[in-house]
């Protein structure tokens, strides 16, 4: 897959001397959903702002669709739709007027059919004549997405798209994003909800203190860094572990009622077979077992802590 966005050696130092981005290199593939994760102040919004033309870079180069965002900004920006984190809207405009305004701003000829489709896709059609000030927070968020989609962008930036949005609406938003991806739009989203990245993204990038810590396919990342945990619920409580099981680094929990075994899925041997056989030999019987995989959240917390 070719890159639709290519960021090379990008740095940003604010007037105060604060380095928001330090030599960032990143390629976004055409057609993917890329989730950018990072704690508050990590540089996510700064990175997006520079790519979209809202902030000036201090150093480095960004190409969007092969066009340099500084020397060929018209072509580069016309490919991008941006939904910022904050709900910035023209309170006294109607939904239809504000979305049509965005299309004009991006130099596209009027196309009421397209605006109608966007509004219908985002369940805003019946609100098209309402003033934005009368809409709920979730609807305002969708109006901002509609504005970003009004000029048929190839890349859509969603900066915290579901912040402050209830569960039902969040799932609706995910549906919208998936449909967009199917129509060929590349999506870059930042989020605090790890489950959102886990649910949606093809690839995940982690940014911390202005540096890209990691970029990986989501599934590879889960496999690579994901640990599994086997929990055995014992038939009879035991007070201590027999010597023969010492090699497994087991944890005895719940006052001796459960045994917990962490293993690495990337290892050649998980040790589960021998553990189970050694348990039987030691006369320890269990009546249930379950396995859990560490979530992206655990991985993320680990990464940010160590970087």
């Amino acid at each position, binding site marked *: 897959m070719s890159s639709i966005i290519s960021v090379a050696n990008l740095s940003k130092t*604010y*007037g105060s001397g604060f380095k928001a981005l330090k030599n960032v290199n990143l390629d976004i593939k055409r057609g993917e959903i890329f989730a950018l994760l990072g704690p508050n102040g990590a540089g996510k919004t700064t990175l997006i702002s520079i790519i*979209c*033309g*809202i*902030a*000036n870079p201090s150093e480095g180069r960004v190409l969007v669709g092969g066009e340099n965002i500084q020397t060929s*900004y*018209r*072509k*580069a*920006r*016309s490919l*991008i739709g*941006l939904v*910022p984190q*904050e709900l*910035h*809207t*023209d*309170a*006294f405009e109607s939904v239809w*007027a504000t979305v049509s*305004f*965005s*299309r*004009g*701003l*991006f*130099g*596209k*000829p009027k196309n009421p059919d397209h605006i109608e489709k966007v509004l219908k896709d985002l369940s805003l059609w019946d609100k098209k004549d309402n003033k934005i000030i009368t809409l709920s927070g979730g609807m305002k968020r969708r109006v901002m997405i509609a*504005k970003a989609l009004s000029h048929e962008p190839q890349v859509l930036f969603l900066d915290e798209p579901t912040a402050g949005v209830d569960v039902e609406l969040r799932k609706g938003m995910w549906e919208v994003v998936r449909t967009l991806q199917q129509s060929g739009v590349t999506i870059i989203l930042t989020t605090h909800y790890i489950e959102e990245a886990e649910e949606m993204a093809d690839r995940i990038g982690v940014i911390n203190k202005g540096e890209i810590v990691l970029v990986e396919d989501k599934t590879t990342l889960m496999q690579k860094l994901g640990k599994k945990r086997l929990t055995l619920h014992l038939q009879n409580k035991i007070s201590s572990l027999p010597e023969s099981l010492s090699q497994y680094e087991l944890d005895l929990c719940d006052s001796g009622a459960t045994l917990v075994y962490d293993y690495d899925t990337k290892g050649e041997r998980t040790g589960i077979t021998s553990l189970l056989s050694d348990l039987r030999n030691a006369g320890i019987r269990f009546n249930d077992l379950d396995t859990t995989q560490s979530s992206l959240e655990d991985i993320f917390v680990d990464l940010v802590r160590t970087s």
Partner: protein
Amino acid sequence: MNHRAIRAIYLFEMARTWRTLLQSIVSPVVSTSLYFVVFGAAIGSRISEVEGVSYGTFIVPGLIMLSVLTQSIANASFGIYFPKFTGTIYEILSAPISYFEIVLGYVGAAATKSIILGLIILATAGLFVPLHIHHPVWMLAFLVLTAVTFSLFGFIIGIWADGFEKLQMIPMLVVTPLTFLGGSFYSIDMLPAGWRTVALLNPVVYLISGFRWSFYEIADVSVSVSIGMTLAFLVVCLGVIWWIFRTGYRLKN
């Protein structure tokens, strides 16, 4: 050139005017009418003619300029400050549009509004005093030049301001005094010699003088100096705006 974007910004700004018709048009017309009642009819009837023109008639160009100056600044500064305040500026900055086109959209709309307003006030003045415009083309030229120049100045204030107080500060504390002292209500020839020299440092004197010349062929300073000074201020404003966009001052940092 992204014509559609310029059009979108221009129409968006003009739509704001129609939405706030009372504030944008009616209120300046009412206040100007009050000036005519007070200065033209009540006090003006006791003042002798100024340079061969009745006092009520004499103040018409100055009153129009007073409104055009303040409204150009108010319209343009608010036009660009408000998106900064609400955050919707992100869309302008991320659109495929050049700085020149952004200025054209905002300043074009602000200037259009104040030109319309100036003409409405002129028409209103015609109801109170007899009017004869000697050089209508020059009158329009001065009106347009002043509206554009001061809309550019307002645009700069709107970008510079980081609060509503600052937005009001320059128009209230600088522009209004300069306009009142710039010969809106009198000829600077009426001032004592020393004050006359001081008055010539006021750029508004040149605008009003030139504008009044286009009406009655009477001027405090020569017309070419008036045009020259207005153009000079226009160039200074353009220079500052060029610098603002080049550096991203208060927009991109």
